[in-house]
């Protein structure tokens, strides 16, 4: 696949999911074709956000949360996002749990990133867990108790994966959103994409580099989103109700961004020892950086 000629680079960007989305396509194919594919790719971010946002009172997710106790038919996007999040919860015995949404709201992660609108959910059951989310035939979801689902660890990755599907015809491209990415083929120099891993304690520096082709890379870190009181971050441990401790960041390399994102989040909450074992069992590669700055690779 590496080539000696330099191909044109086409770029696209948008704002979605509280972050900046950037796409690069490296190809000498017809420009109109590239731009059409880029537009389709960007649209997936709006589609997934509209389905999965916890911050938008009109999202499909919020409509689902408003109807506990009955089977609700949902879109393929919401169905698959919730199903993957619940599978991840089962695989970690609830250490990762998408029903952590209420606690996130209580920690101040409840503000829409553009409108500033604050959402609060007064009527949820604080003892509810992922086991209260049931899947039925014909894409129905039943919430056995009122819950607040947070799909933050899943939805952005899913959107990148779907955007990438639109670009497969070009072979060489990358889709990045807020530090999570999929890189296919080669960069403009005909080499594998060179990915820097953010140093979690010195944001001007990189802790490592990875050469990536046809793989997703995601990082969960304690420096990403601080709670409003400044004492915690957004990766809550359901066992304690507090921010997970011990690790500064976990980077996962996997075939899909949804898997990489979810597994990185779960491994971060699990901590170093269990997190390494979990990634090995999941057959993906990881880079762990501890709070003291030590680095471990699986």
């Amino acid at each position, binding site marked *: 696949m590496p080539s000696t000629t330099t191909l044109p*680079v*086409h770029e*696209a*960007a*948008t704002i979605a999911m509280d972050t*900046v989305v950037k796409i690069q396509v490296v190809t000498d194919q017809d420009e109109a*074709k590239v*731009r059409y594919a880029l*537009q389709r790719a960007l649209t997936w971010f*709006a*589609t997934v956000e*509209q389905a999965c946002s916890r911050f938008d009172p*009109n999202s*499909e997710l919020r409509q689902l949360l408003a109807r506990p106790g009955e089977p609700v038919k949902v879109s*393929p*996007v919401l169905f*698959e996002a919730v*199903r*993957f999040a619940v*599978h991840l919860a089962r*695989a970690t*015995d609830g250490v990762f749990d998408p029903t952590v949404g209420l606690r996130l709201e209580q920690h101040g992660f409840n*503000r829409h*990133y553009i*409108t500033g609108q604050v959402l*609060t*959910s*007064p009527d949820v059951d604080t003892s509810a867990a992922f086991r209260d989310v049931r899947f039925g035939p014909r894409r129905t979801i039943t919430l056995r108790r*009122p819950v607040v689902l947070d799909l933050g660890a899943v939805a952005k990755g899913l959107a990148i994966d*779907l955007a990438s*599907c639109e670009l497969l015809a070009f072979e060489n491209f*990358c889709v*990045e959103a807020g*530090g*999570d990415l999929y890189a296919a083929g080669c960069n403009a120099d005909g080499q594998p994409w*060179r*990915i*820097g*891993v*953010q*140093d979690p304690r010195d*944001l*001007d*520096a*990189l*802790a*490592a*580099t990875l050469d990536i082709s046809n793989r997703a890379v995601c990082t969960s870190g304690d*420096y*990403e*989103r601080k709670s409003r009181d400044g004492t915690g971050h957004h990766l809550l441990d359901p066992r304690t109700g507090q921010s997970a401790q011990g690790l500064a960041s976990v980077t996962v390399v*996997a075939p*899909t961004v*949804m898997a990489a994102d979810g*597994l990185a989040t779960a491994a971060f909450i699990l901590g170093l020892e*269990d997190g390494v*074992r979990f990634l090995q069992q*999941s057959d*993906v590669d990881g880079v762990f950086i501890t709070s003291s700055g030590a*680095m471990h690779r699986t």
Partner: protein
Amino acid sequence: MAKKMPGRLVALSASAVAAIYLAGLVSTQPAADSVTVASAGATTAVVATSTPLVVAAVAATATPVVAPTGVPTTAATPPPAATATATTSTAASPSTYANGTFSGSGTSRFGNVNVSVSVSNGKIANAQITSVTTKYPASRIASLPGQVVQNQTANVNLVTGATSSSQAFKQAVQQALAQAQALAASSTAAAG
């Protein structure tokens, strides 16, 4: 822990992506075909320069994003009877924004983001990127266990875990909204 076959997770994620993508293709293929034919003309808001930056707006209001014709919209329309129990409040009073389109820029250690924010009826209607530049530093590899990564200074293409572009975009939006607020305040003062 983790005794419930985590190895299946990667396969599950791949089949989930495929299921959604195929559902989108099936439901939008006829429309997509018609747009492909028409795409030589003007289809969407694409900036035509030598290195075209395709921009897409994000809807920030109650109005769902309207997808351009032929793009994969797989979301089923939620039942109209559904009402959200979540309550909302707005941090800044919407009436403090003047109507119009305002631009702002934000900078971060890895680049700049310029945005355009439009305000309609005192509310933020949408925000979109007008340009974005990215510049990553040459990697300064900290001390690593010898074999894993060679010391090198090559530039990286992307950085995982870098969230500074998000902060730059928020800064840009705030700058744009500050103009909308200032304009609203001055017109209020003039009226008073």
